[in-house]
């Protein structure tokens, strides 16, 4: 019995060593301290990055590289930003833009998935329009507006049209690539089990293609957002202000402070969305048993 005790102690000590190498696992629920530690680990690099950027920025401004009204420092931009985000109009604009972005993206998702599956399913279709999809993607959103206007008038639908044209190709492309790279051994397994038609897609192909699909979604979001910004800066619809319009007005008026404020806002939106995609991506990898490097 004493012998066992000694061994247990020794094990505990070694366990502490192991703890330093990697988070200790299998020791029941995580403690609050551990959770706090994890949050801290996920946060400090972000905070450090922000602080560094602000410092560098201010330093450049202080160095007198460019005049203040061309390149204002954080000391001038942050108050402007703060003033902007405390107005109700700002939040209305954000709401309008986010609503458009999300509906547009959802639409692009549906269209992209249908096209992606159709293209990867029917060989002649792929040969015929596979490359056209990428071709469409390279088209600057600005050229779509005359068409959007012809089809839908100056309306939300026109903006949706441009978003879908911008984002759907990425989504379709990601899906097609994902489907192309599904492991042949899984495809064979599916075939033997008699997976066919819709079930083949829901049970096998789509889940197997998910990693690339999510990457495609992320790109699609970026395209959707950029198209939206391009669309919003052309015209105000229904007297609704929007982020894209505000951005373009700041640019038109050479208002560097507001421009920088809105850049920060767009960045923040982009980062928040990306955090969401990353979360999905990590969940996916955990499921597949691929732990991050």
């Amino acid at each position: 019995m004493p012998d066992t005790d000694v061994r247990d102690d020794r094990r505990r000590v070694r366990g502490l060593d192991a703890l330093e190498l990697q988070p200790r696992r299998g020791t029941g629920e995580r403690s609050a301290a551990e959770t706090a530690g994890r949050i801290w680990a996920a946060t400090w690099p972000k905070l450090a990055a922000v602080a560094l950027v602000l410092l560098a920025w201010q330093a450049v401004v202080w160095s007198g590289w460019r005049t203040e009204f061309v390149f204002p420092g954080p000391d001038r931009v942050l108050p402007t930003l703060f003033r902007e985000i405390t107005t109700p109009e700002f939040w209305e604009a954000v709401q309008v833009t986010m609503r458009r972005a999300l509906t547009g993206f959802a639409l692009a998702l549906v269209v992209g998935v249908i096209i992606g599956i159709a293209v990867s399913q029917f060989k002649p279709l792929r040969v015929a329009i596979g490359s056209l999809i990428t071709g469409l993607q390279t088209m600057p959103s600005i050229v779509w507006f005359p068409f959007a206007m012809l089809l839908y008038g100056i309306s939300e639908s026109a903006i949706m049209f441009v978003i879908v044209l911008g984002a759907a190709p990425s989504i379709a492309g990601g899906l097609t690539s994902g489907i192309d790279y599904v492991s042949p051994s899984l495809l064979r397994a599916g075939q033997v089990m008699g997976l066919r038609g819709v079930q083949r897609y829901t049970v096998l192909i789509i889940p197997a293609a998910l990693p690339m699909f999510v990457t495609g979604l992320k790109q699609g979001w970026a395209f959707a957002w950029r198209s939206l910004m391009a669309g919003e800066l052309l015209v105000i619809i229904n007297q609704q202000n929007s982020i894209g319009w505000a951005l373009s007005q700041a640019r038109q008026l050479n208002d560097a402070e507001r421009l920088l404020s809105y850049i920060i806002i767009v960045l923040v939106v982009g980062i928040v969305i990306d955090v969401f995609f990353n979360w999905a991506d990590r969940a996916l990898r955990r499921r597949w048993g691929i732990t991050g490097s």
Partner: protein
Amino acid sequence: AGAEEADGSSLTLGYFPNITHAPALVGVQDGIIPGALGEDVAFDTRIFNSGPDAVNALFSGEVDAAYLGPSPAVNGWAQSEGQALHVVAGAATRGTGLVVREGIDSLDDLRGTTLATPQLGGTQDVALRWIAEEQGWDVDTAGGGDLSIVPQANAETVDAFALGEIDGAWLPEPHLSRVLAEDDAHLLIDEADLWPQTDGRFVTTHLAVGAEFLDRNPEVVEDLLRGHIASVDLLNEEPERARAAAGDHLESLTGARLDPGITASAFDNVAFTVDPVAPSLLAGADRAEAVGLLEPVDLNGIYALDLLNGLLAEDGRERVAGLEG
């Protein structure tokens, strides 16, 4: 207001958030234009950032009337072979000029410099090329020659000037006042000096109406013109109040108030009138042709000033002239 429903029950007006569109700004802000249209006509607005978009909207019937600069109006007329739009009134004149950096004091100093204009083939661009042509300089449309003319967006131009990338620019208001206020720059040429034949007036902003809309609903257009005339009058008679209203409207559209000094100087440089200064449009087109930028365009019929002249006559005012012959 889609093209199908141009039944006169509604009117959609397009304009820019820009000082040269002040009659629209004031007219909408103070309710002058919707008031003139009356209860029966639903009034709506579309705010554009650039002329071509507004013309496109006129083409497809998305807007029924729009305030436009001369180049988009002429382009729209030319592209549609005279089918899409008519100019029914003037709105603003003047308000452009060539600003240059210190050290350039005469036309001769311009040789070898880089100057920006807002748009290739636009009025300002044509004016600068016209001057170069008169001086006998060799200039091409790709920024080469004795004088390098680079077309670029006004916002870019303001930055480029501040950074010393260009030596000067032919700019409209309020960018003109902005450069003058913020940089070491001075006005080398006031464009008004180029128009002795019209007493220094030249068109900056028009009010254009879709041709089909005009055909079907002349009475609505007449009401619109009534409001337009009232706005212009207000701008001329009570400049303080009108400018304040325009400023408020601008702020609501752009989310920011311009520097008051710049606004004041910009307003001082622009004159508002319902006269479209037709000769300046014609001469501008001739000049564009002369410098090789425009295919010959027959501008005959671009003006439809009868309604305006009727209203002016009601008030006992002087008629304005279109293009005769």
